[in-house]
């Protein structure tokens, strides 16, 4: 295990310079923006006078120079303090801690669903490349892959939530329901069905395609031929050899898609009114809340780093050629 720990530590340390680049980049981007947090705030309250704006700038700490604020931000982040949101008037850490679970639920479920279904269908399609099932699944996945997720979300919500009333229209749970424990979990699950489907579909298609490609690749390898020569049953070759090997690129893909999935959840959260990271980012941008947007992007980036780390560890566990003693 120390070996594992060392790998984790190395990876995390290695991502520090990357995160610094992210912070500086986002900071500079926001500073080039037209309008600041005070402008946004004054608008939201329907106006104010010039002196009030000045007072607010001092209160929000916007009167200092760019470099001073950048230095302050970096120092703050180095202490693990995400700072204070002027738009929401609350500590950013607390805001993020509130929203993070919702996005994690959404992303986690979408990942699980698309990975499970995508790989299973990918096996089905790649079982016999060129077969009718393969052509159907390949065409279907291409179609799914081409549908914008927000549009799919709209269609799903009209059909299943508004028309059929099977599922809730929006939100992450029934508000102020007082539910706890399993009842609450069931409630959240119910709210997640549509957004997870809308978000996960495109990845399901992607994973199906990657899995299928991996299977096709595996069929060209000697080890599947050798297994045939040993008289191993076809289903066993499919699952135990081809699918298992095809899973490796899929796991890699999972890491690569983490960032994209987080981006996709921005739109889906907007469609389904889920108070998650995506909506927080939109609020931060609208409110010109630099520190908040920084917090959101930084924590998103950390999530992606974590996701990739997990994928690496999973890969190491799956593939004896990496990680283990050579």
């Amino acid at each position, binding site marked *: 295990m120390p070996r594992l720990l060392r790998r984790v530590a190395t990876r995390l340390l290695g991502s520090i310079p990357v995160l610094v680049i992210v912070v500086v980049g986002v900071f500079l981007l926001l500073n080039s923006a*037209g309008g600041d*947090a005070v402008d946004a705030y004054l*608008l939201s309250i329907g106006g104010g006078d*010039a002196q009030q704006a000045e007072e607010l700038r001092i209160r929000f700490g916007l009167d200092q120079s760019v470099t001073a604020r950048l230095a302050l931000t970096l120092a703050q982040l180095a202490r693990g303090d995400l700072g204070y949101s002027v738009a929401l008037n*609350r500590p950013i850490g607390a805001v993020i801690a509130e929203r993070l679970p919702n996005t994690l639920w959404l992303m986690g479920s979408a990942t699980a669903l698309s990975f499970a279904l995508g790989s299973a269908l990918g096996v089905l399609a790649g079982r016999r490349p060129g077969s009718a099932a393969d052509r159907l699944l390949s065409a279907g996945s291409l179609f799914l892959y081409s549908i914008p997720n927000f549009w799919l979300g709209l269609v799903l919500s009209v059909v299943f939530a*508004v028309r059929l009333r099977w599922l809730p229209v*929006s939100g992450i749970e029934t508000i102020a329901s007082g539910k706890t424990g399993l009842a609450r979990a069931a409630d959240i699950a119910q709210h997640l069905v549509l957004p997870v489907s809308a978000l996960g579909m495109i990845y399901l298609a992607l994973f199906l395609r990657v899995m299928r490609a991996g299977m096709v690749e595996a069929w060209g390898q000697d080890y599947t031929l050798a297994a045939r020569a040993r008289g191993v049953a076809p289903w066993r070759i499919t699952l135990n050899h081809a699918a298992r090997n095809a899973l490796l690129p899929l796991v890699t893909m999972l890491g690569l898609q983490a960032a994209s999935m987080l981006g996709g959840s921005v739109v889906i959260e907007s469609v389904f*009114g889920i108070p998650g990271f995506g*909506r927080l980012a939109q609020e931060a941008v609208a409110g010109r809340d630099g520190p908040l947007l920084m917090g959101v992007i930084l924590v998103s980036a950390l999530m992606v780093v974590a996701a990739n780390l997990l994928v690496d560890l999973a890969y190491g566990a799956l593939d004896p050629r990496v990680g283990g003693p050579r």
Partner: protein
Amino acid sequence: MLPSVSRRTLLGTAAALLASTALPRLARAAEGGRLVVAADSEPRQLNPAIVASNGVFFIASKVVEPLAEASYEGDGLRPLLATAWEGSDDGRTITFTLREGVTWHDGTPFTSADVAFSAMEVWKPLQNIGRSLFADLEAVDTPDDHTAVFRFSKPTPLQLIANALPVVSSVLPKHLYEGTDIAANPANGALVGTGPFTWGEYRPGEYYLLKRNPAYWNAGEPHLEEIVFRVLPDRAAAASSLEAGEIQLAAFSAVPLADLARIAGVPGLEVVTKGYEALTYQLVVEINHRNEYLRNLKVRQAIAHAIDKRYVLDAIFLGYAEEATGPVPKNAPAFYTGDVTTYGFDVEKAKALLDEAGFPAGPDGVRFRLNLLPAPYFNETRQFGDYLRQALAAIGIDATIVANDSAGHQKAVYTDHAFDLAIAPTVFRGDPAISTTILVRSGIPAGVPFSNQGGYVSPALDALVDEALVTLDPAKRVELYDEFQRLVTADLPLINVADWSFTSVASDKVENIATNPRWAVSNWADVGLEE
């Protein structure tokens, strides 16, 4: 009809009595229940005494009350924390008689000290509107616990103050705020007021929960047990949620206009257009007079002629708006006059005006180019931007739409003046002195939203605005503002296109909707929910 307020009018319990007997459904309102309402935004801070805006009032007005609320009855005001108000002849003092037997939600009695504190420490120095309205307020005397005397350094019309009361006079508990950083007081997040509902819970991004105040001063109210404001920034989601029965009320046009016709036909839902009369929004084309073309009156007139207001009302507002004739909406009958210069839709005339102005069409049909910045906060302003671009194209003006988000728009138009034409939704706040005049008065520093940032200067207009500000006689004030409307429509510092208000969509189980002209931002003490 809102009759003009007489300086010496005494409003007493009689008005309140009248109000209660005039609303027969009130007695029948069901007790208890939870009303779930769509809220489209989460204000940064919810203290209505500091931030006088509809977004804040929508939630906070149920908890923190002003001295008076707007009313369809009598002279247009219903006493809340003040039972009467009287101005002195010299216009330098206004005396408020305060309601007795009112307690704060924490049990402390409400007294004139709270009013004095709120006025001097909050409204005057901190509140976005109060800062100008109460600029001349010198002191508030409290001869007894239930009398507050406002002393002004200059004559101040009672009419103006009275008209502004529902907006500017939310009273804060002195005992919680005194000696603290008021803007950062924790009570701004968990409000303490005298209203019919007490603060319950806030889950950011999800909901606000308000609970019944059992000790409300008006015995028998409120009827609801709880109000939940569910955060639904997306307007389409609000409509779907109403249909799915997840919410019972969507105010402030949370349901898009385009969907209203359909939703009106959904069983169990009703569309209510009343209840926003005192919350009129004005669709205004802001003009940058620094622009060489727009500096020319003929060009401004041509633009006014190029706009088919009828079409705007029908296509963009789907009929839920009024054609504007000038800077005061018809919804403010006390001040409105139709006796102004009007500009009928006439493309040929517009073209002729432009020719006269010396801007003939080029070979590509274009006379000159402008940029156009529609305010992004409303669908209607954006759509009108699309329309205006077309309308201008028809008379040979090539307009390019520059889209910014809210903060970017604010900076571009009101700070950097980086616009030729802008489209703004300004609010008419019941009295020209605290709303529409700021759009044309010169000398307003950069950075103030919804103010004259187009560089328009008219000494005559400035003088008129200033005079009206210190004119005590209501009739004289009205006359001055009539003249103001005439001047503005003649010289077109800006173009008023339409005045619109909001709609509510509610479950037909919700009782006592739209019982006053500021209903959505009033205290909802009388609202009930049928089982």
